[in-house]
Each structure stands twice: as C-alpha cells, then as structure tokens.
C-alpha cells in the first residue's frame, strides 16, 4: 500500500512515506535498506591494499612511507581502538632512523572505518593538498600510509617526524546514505596524549555529494596557516573559523 504523502520526500532524505504491507515494509523498501547496509558493512570490513595505494602515491610524484600498527585484522581494529593509535616496533624504528629535513606537515593516510572512502577519494585529495601546500612553501614529509589506524595515530607519527603539524586523512564511519566519506584531522605540535579538543576537523569529503577535494584542501591550508600563526589547534582555532573560511572558499 503506497502512502499518499510521498511528495514530502522532496523535503528530506529520511525514509518517509515508505508505504506498507500490513504493518511491515513493502519489499522494495526492505531490500533498498538491505543494500545500503550491505555497502556500509563492506566499507568497514574490506581490508585496505596499502602496497597498491603506495604505488599510486609514487605515480603522483609524492614520497610514500608504509607503516603499521600492532593490529593484524579488522576485527581487532574494531575492538581495540587503543592499538589503532600506536605504531608497531618495526615502524617506530623506521621513523626514528629515517633521515629527514625540517617538516612542517606530517601527512598520514589511514583507512579508518571505511576502506571504500580511501580507495575512492584519498589520491585526488592528496594531490589537491600537495598543490595547496606547495603554493605556500609548506614542507611536507613523506606521505605515511597506515592500515587500521585511528585519528590519534597522527600524534606519534607527527612526533616521530618532528613535524610542526600532523594531518591525518581517515575513512569515516559509514552511514546508510554514505559509505565513502573521508575526514581530515589537524593537530598542532603532535605528541601522544593530545586530546580531540586540540584538533580541528574537516568532515564529509566525498564529491560530488559532499565537500570537494579542492575545497577541502583550501580549508586545510587555511587551518594549517592559522594554526602555525596561533601556535595551536583545536578549540582555540575554532572561534574565528567559519566566516573567514567561507570567504576563502568562495
């Protein structure tokens, strides 16, 4: 049985006016939901092919450095957020012994909760970020690629590279309407123990429905420069952000 008020669907993405079969969902609505949930589940559980991604990063002309956490699979990753925030011993050593010049921004990519998101959007986003930074002579370290990482992983990597800022690109938790959304977190003077209140976030990067790559990169550039000017990130940076960022984006 269809609902006569289906026109209301133009007002919201919510699943309204679905109709009914008795008191249950009609078959089409039921199966639409199943498909959306299946896509979200796949995005969460699909492992990320880091080596293949590293090849693509090289092709963009960027340096890549593959690191790892102590986690070996997705189930562990979901149960142990604490282990997604640290590097394994081998990776720690790799960072320690890596000869590097002064780095402004340590750039990190991890699949987080959506491998679909990094596979779909992370390369063009990296390119846009590299372009934006290059134009303002901000020095970028090697792009660190880590499977199964959490946002706070950027603290130890940023510290390991002695970077002024850490920026992590991470797959966001998939919803039913979007399974491919990327988030970006910026932390000034990264070191283990930083709280989320000390970070700034750019969310919902997934063109064309969400934020575009260039838009996200320009917003990141703005936040990076402000953070360096203020010697800090997070709450302290938030207040003055909206109006100016909007202006920058136009």
């Amino acid at each position, binding site marked *: 049985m269809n609902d006569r*008020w289906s026109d209301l669907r133009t*007002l919201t*993405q*919510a*699943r309204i006016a*679905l109709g009914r079969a008795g008191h249950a969902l009609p078959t089409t609505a039921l199966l639409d*939901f199943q498909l959306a949930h299946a896509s979200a589940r796949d995005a969460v559980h699909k492992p990320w092919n880091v080596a293949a991604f590293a090849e693509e990063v090289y092709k963009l002309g960027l340096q890549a450095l593959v690191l790892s956490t102590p986690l070996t699979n997705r189930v562990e990753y979901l149960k142990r957020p604490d282990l997604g925030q640290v590097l394994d011993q081998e990776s720690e050593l790799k960072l320690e012994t890596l000869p590097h010049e002064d780095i402004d921004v340590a750039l990190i990519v991890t699949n987080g909760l959506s491998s679909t998101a990094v596979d779909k959007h992370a390369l063009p986003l990296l390119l846009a970020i590299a372009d934006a930074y290059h134009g303002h002579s901000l020095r970028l370290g090697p792009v660190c690629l880590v499977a199964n990482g959490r946002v706070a992983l950027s603290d130890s990597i940023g510290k390991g590279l002695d970077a002024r800022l850490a920026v992590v690109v991470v797959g966001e*938790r998939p*919803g*039913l309407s979007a399974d491919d959304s990327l988030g970006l977190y910026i932390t000034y003077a990264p070191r283990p123990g930083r709280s989320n209140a000390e970070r700034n976030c750019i969310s919902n990067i997934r063109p064309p429905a969400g934020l575009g790559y260039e838009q996200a990169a320009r917003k990141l550039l703005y936040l990076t420069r402000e953070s360096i000017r203020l010697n800090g990130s997070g709450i302290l940076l938030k207040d003055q952000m909206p109006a100016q960022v909007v202006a920058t984006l136009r």
Partner: protein
Amino acid sequence: MSYSATVANRTYRFRDLRALLAAASPLRSADELAGLAAASEKERAVAQRVLAEVPLRKFLEEPLIPPEQDEVSRLILEQHDPVAFAPVASLSVGEFREWLLSNSGDLGALSWGLTPEMVAATSKIMRNQDLIAVARRCNVVTRFRNSIGLPGRLSTRLQPNHPTDDPKGIAASTLDGLLYGSGDAVIGINPATDNLENVHTLLNLLDEMRARYEIPTQSCVLSHVTTTMELMQRGSPVDLVFQSIAGTEAANRSFGVDLSTLREARQMALELNRGTLGDNLMYFETGQGSALSAGAHHGIDAQICEARAYAVAREFSPLLVNTVVGFIGPEYLYDGKQIIRAGLEDHFCGKLLGLPMGCDVCYTNHAEADQNDMDNLLTLLGVAGCTYVMGIPGSDDIMLAYQSTSFHDALYLRQVLGLRPAPEFEAWLVRMGIFDGRNTLSDQRSNTPLLSAFGNLSGGTT
C-alpha cells in the same frame, strides 16, 4: 576485602568487590577494553558462583567508590530506604534472584530499598528469560500530557532528526511518524547543533504542531541541559528537560552536568507548569560504556556504571529514561548478542529501580549486528514490558548515522503482542482517523485532517 573460590584444585582470586562484579559480568567488549573482563569463561562462571554468595547488605557496607569522592555514591546511600529493603535484607545475591522469581506480585514497593549495585549484581547471574520475567512485574506509570507505562501499553518516541535541522524536513518526518501512530512518549529531536536560536526554532515548530492538532503528547529538543535552561529563561516552549547522564560524578562532569544543575533545571521546568496530567518532565538517556569512554569508570564494569546512572535518573522523577544500547560502538558492545544482553539488563535494572525504562534498540554500521538482531531485542523487550522504543523513518537516522527501530517496527510489536499506545494518544489517533479503533492503522488514514493541514508543506501534496 578480597574474594576467592577453589574449583577443581584451582583457586580463583578476585581483588575486591569491583573486580568480582566485573569478572562475573557476561562478556562484552567494554570490559575487555577496560582490562576488567574475566580471563576465561571458567573464571567468569566461578565469579558468578562467588557473587551469588555475597549478601545484598555488602553493597551498603562497601561502596564501590568512596562516597567522599563521588556524589553519585553519596546519592545512592542517601536514597536507600531500610524499610523498603527489610523484606530482602537478609538475602544473598543468589537468594535474591530466587526471591524475585518466586514471587508473583508487583515489585514497585521494593524499588527504594534496592541500590543499583544490588540490582546489577543480581542481573549478572540471571538468564535473559529471568530478566524478562521479573521486569514484566514492575509497573511504572508517569504523566505529563498523557499516561505512559500502563499495563498492556507500549509508547514510542518519534525521532524526526535532520542533518541540518531543516524545519521542513523535520516537519515532514514528524507528520510521517504521526500518520504511522508514533509519538506518544515524546516527539524528540536530536539537534545537529546546540545553537540557541536553532533549538528555539525547533521547539516552536514542535509546539505549534502539537498545539494546532491538540496532540496529547510532549515535545523535546535534546540539547544540553544548560542550553535548555537558557531557553526556558528566554521563554521558549520547553515541555521536557533532556540530559545524557552516567553513573559516576566524573563521567557526569565530562557531560558538563552535576546533580545540582539537574535539580535547578527541573525546578525551572516545573515552574513553567506545562504538564496537564502530571509533572514528570525530565528525560534522560544513558548507555553502557559511557563512563569508560570518559575515562571515569573507577575500575567498575560497564553494566554497574550504567545501573548507577539510574540512581541519578530516579532522583528527578523522570517522564522517560532510555538506554541507547548499541549506539556507542563495537569496542563497547561488539555484536548483536552483546547488544541484546545489555538491552535486557538495562531494562531490568531500570525497572526494578522504579524508572519508566525505554530502550533505543540500535546499532552502528561497524558493529556485528543488523536489523534482525534489532527485531530480536525489540520482541524480547516487548515481552518484558518495555515502556517505549524509538520511531525513526525506515530505521535510518540520517543525522546521527545509526540504525534504530522504525514506525513500522512499533506497529509490528503492537500487532504480535497486542500492545496499545498511551490511552489519551490512542483516542487521538482514532479521532484523527489514523487508527481504526482496533489498534491497527486505518485504511482511511489518507483522509485524516492532519494530512490536508500539512499539505502545503511541500507545496503540492494531497
């Protein structure tokens, strides 16, 4: 004091009451993450045996957090009523389980004699069917503009969230919900931002809809309690005061609240005098894992922390309390099995402590759970006499990005268990032609005056 037991020549030791309770808790990832879970299934089973021997009195004599360090612990001791406790005062945890299952009457008289720790400890050695059978016998009725929790009734919170708080989008979801018979517990929006102007706009939107169609229900925008207080001072139409709460003082502080703030907020709302049938006007949400997530669990397991939040809730005679059981994610409740168990525990503990306990039967996409698990928990809670569940268009909350129960799900539960909405709301549904008088949707509901009045929303409907 430490606890120990020897089974098959092996001695198991538990450092203190907190460690024993945690080890006796059915497995969940939150306790594993906190390093509190039993090391093996056998250790868990032994801990349950040891816990069964602990006298209920022990929980009064040995507070899990020293009262001088924690206002929730002080509140728990202040609330305890020795007269109400008398009938079970000599029992151990194991004996109390049997006492609960052997008696058949209403358990309301007992609630102020029990502490959260007694109730939660007992639940740890109860099967799911025990939790259901006992919770069914706790009748808790609350009133604001209708009567919630009467026997044979199931209410629903209509949750018309929108990612940008767009008033038209919210009105469309609200209308859809009403046309499916949802909304007698509350029409409650989780705002995308806590901005004052924004919340004020949403409060007015809901209040106008309710007043125009004389809907016997209440509305709520689930903003922070301090935002709601500010809006009450500015004259916004606030029916219910919402706040997320937890079971330790430190966890509540991480939410930006304490008992005195809640007391002050309730007093302000009482003075508005907006309830017509009663003055239960607080709305609380809780969930296992919140204290751990705030780093404020004091070495206490997730379920005990959760039950302690109910001591906070009952201090304020709430209209509604619900656990948001699967929202927190798999590092706290890993899969459908853990979510179902936690939902039944929370409902049992809340009801036995005298709360109008509902449940947001829900999960996120990174949990090992799906809509079938939610069907299971929903059905079990329906049998257990759960006060209310959520109604979300198609189960999909497009703002909070998680899945809960839908308008259709509540109708399913009404149908299979014969559960009716709150009586005042049911009468309104029949008057509006939405229900047919036999607890089912009317085939004629497209002709409801509600729909024609909202028809101009999208510029063309009907």
